[in-house]
């Protein structure tokens, strides 16, 4: 098995002094991330390596944390713009999450209309969940019809947070927001449920890549927002390997924890067990030593 590649693009300049995001810097971060991920020099060729023009792309964001600690609208819009630049029609892109209210609360401008990138939740009129259960291993869930019927390709655009039970919530656990009953899958440190939800056909058949919004992260006492344990990392994490992407996120969180004088997740007894399970299931690689990590720093 080839070493999975993870690209971490950091640009401290992405944050303005006023605490907002700089769109131009963010756009460049996506170009750098995708070109490094694909070994292509040009953005268009990177897009062609990852997507086909007819793809209907769902960008699954995580907005449960409200405006303070969710996938940022600017990040999702920058990704959508990059996709459009790469040949995906805007009308074939959906930014989505569990509920429209949570998207709105996180700052997203809802668009259920017929033009442009659309943004809405599974609870929007006409969307909803599938009527038939997906029964997969220990998971029995209804999946969002946005995932199963509207889109053909899924990008997990997750926020990076500490999670009191799972250890880490990032790209894989983001798909808990695609099922109707995520509250049922937090036993036993969310393991094996995170891996099994990802492995379920509705997700596995569509997931194309992971991009983790690590512009600001919650490194302790997550997944809720706590200002004193949130930090600006100014980074995006890209990978075609969903397990490796989350492993990289874990490393980032532990870095902040160490700087804050906190024990590592491992030392705190909260090692993200779902990663090893995911590796055993063949979903990716979880050992940092076998992951090719490319770190790009810029202005």
């Amino acid at each position, binding site marked *: 098995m080839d070493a999975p590649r993870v690209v971490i693009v950091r640009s401290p300049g992405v944050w303005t002094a006023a605490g907002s995001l700089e769109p131009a810097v963010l756009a460049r971060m996506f170009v750098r991330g995708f070109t490094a991920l694909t070994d292509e020099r040009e953005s268009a060729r990177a897009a062609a390596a990852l997507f086909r023009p007819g793809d*209907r792309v769902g960008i699954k964001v995580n907005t*449960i*944390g*409200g405006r303070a600690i969710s996938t940022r609208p600017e990040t999702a819009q920058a990704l959508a713009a990059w996709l459009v630049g790469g040949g995906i*029609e805007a*009308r*074939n892109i*959906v930014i989505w999450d569990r*509920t429209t*209210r949570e998207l709105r609360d996180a700052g997203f401008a809802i668009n*259920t*209309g*017929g*033009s442009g990138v*659309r943004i809405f939740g599974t*609870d*929007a*009129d*006409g*969307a*909803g*969940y*599938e*009527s*038939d*259960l997906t*029964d997969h291993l220990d998971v*029995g869930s*209804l999946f969002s*019809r*946005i995932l199963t*019927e*509207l*889109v053909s390709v899924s990008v997990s655009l997750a926020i990076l947070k500490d999670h*009191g039970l799972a250890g880490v919530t990032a790209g894989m656990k983001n798909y808990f927001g695609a099922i*109707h*009953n995520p*509250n*049922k899958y*937090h*036993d036993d440190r969310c393991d094996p449920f995170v891996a099994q939800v990802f492995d379920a056909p509705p997700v596995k058949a569509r997931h194309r890549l992971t991009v983790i919004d690590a512009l600001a992260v919650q490194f302790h*006492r*997550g*997944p*809720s*927002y*706590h200002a004193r344990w949130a930090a600006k990392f100014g980074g995006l994490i890209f990978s075609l390997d969903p397990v490796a992407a989350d492993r990289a996120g874990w490393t980032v969180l532990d870095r902040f924890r160490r700087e804050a004088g906190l024990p590592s997740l491992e030392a705190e007894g909260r090692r993200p067990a779902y990663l090893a399970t995911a590796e055993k299931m063949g979903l990716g690689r979880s050992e940092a030593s076998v992951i090719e990590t490319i770190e790009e720093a810029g202005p």
Partner: protein
Amino acid sequence: MNRRDFLRGAAGAGLPAVCGRLAAQAAGPTLTRVEARYYVKLPDREIECRLCPRFCRLGDKERGYCGVRENQGGTYYSLVYGKACSLNVDPVEKKPFFHVLPGTTALSMATAGCNVNCKFCQNWEISQVRAEQVEHFDFPPEAAAAKAVSSGCPSIAYTYSEPTVFFEYMFDTAERARRRGVRSLVVTGGHINPEPLADLLAVVDAVKVDLKGFTEGFYKAYVRGELKPVLETIRTVARSKVWLEIVYLVIPTLNDRPEDIRAMARWAHDTAGADVPVHFSRFHPMYLMKNLPPTPLSTLEAARETALGQGLRFVYIGNVPGHEAESTYCPGCGQAVIRRVGYSIETVRLKKGKCASCGTAIPGIWA
């Protein structure tokens, strides 16, 4: 935007329309926000729920395992108080209660939510969904009590899903119902902590506990819960003045081992006494357990014989309409004192709670 407009927009946008069957769709912004009981506030806007043995510890904006209680800014709320999603007038035998007001109807109600996740759940469309994913309607406690009276129901049954998760709603309804002379019957899996259970027992009249197996392994694998707190609940109800019945759903190959049935029956006898009714119910393929056949009648009959052999005096077979073990037999003379066919009562031969033939007292709530 209504659904038609949405679909028109979807078609115009080049995305395939999604129409037709919808399940677990949001029902609109009508959830309540009534502060929950039995929780403690923790630093940093966290809370710990102490209603059931899960002890969910939740940060801001997080929801409990039940899916109907949420931490909002450090205060824990029930989202379903007064928000019924199911309401029916059912024969009390359907719950089943066989020693409670036979031949009467119970106003049967539920909200969304459950604190376990049984793979064989019969009502998963309401129990295994979050509060906003199922249609619900305003039905406050006073309205429920009044509805029971106007419907001619001498009881209200909190059933279908898991009433523990709508504890506040159930409790207040039971209080109001009692003032009107209406009894309250609880149909539960028994995952509830001692303090709320003690409070609940002060306002309700009967509890039926679904004892879903008799090993921790079964509970972990197929219920996503624990056996021990369920046994504690049964023990507590048995020690109270509240009437208790036990249902054991017999699932082929999973919880039907004779030694487990024997152990369960012995435990029930020793804990709740010889008079506690025990119902062995037939399993039907359902929800996430469609790979098993219905329980063979011979298995149910063997379970009943085993339980009778352990000294239990009122042992029934359920979900087998017309079976003779649906009826209640006097332990004194062996005569049928209540003859049932399905949910119907054919004859009642009780006089003031005693067998009309021999005068043996038959325990239960008869009037």
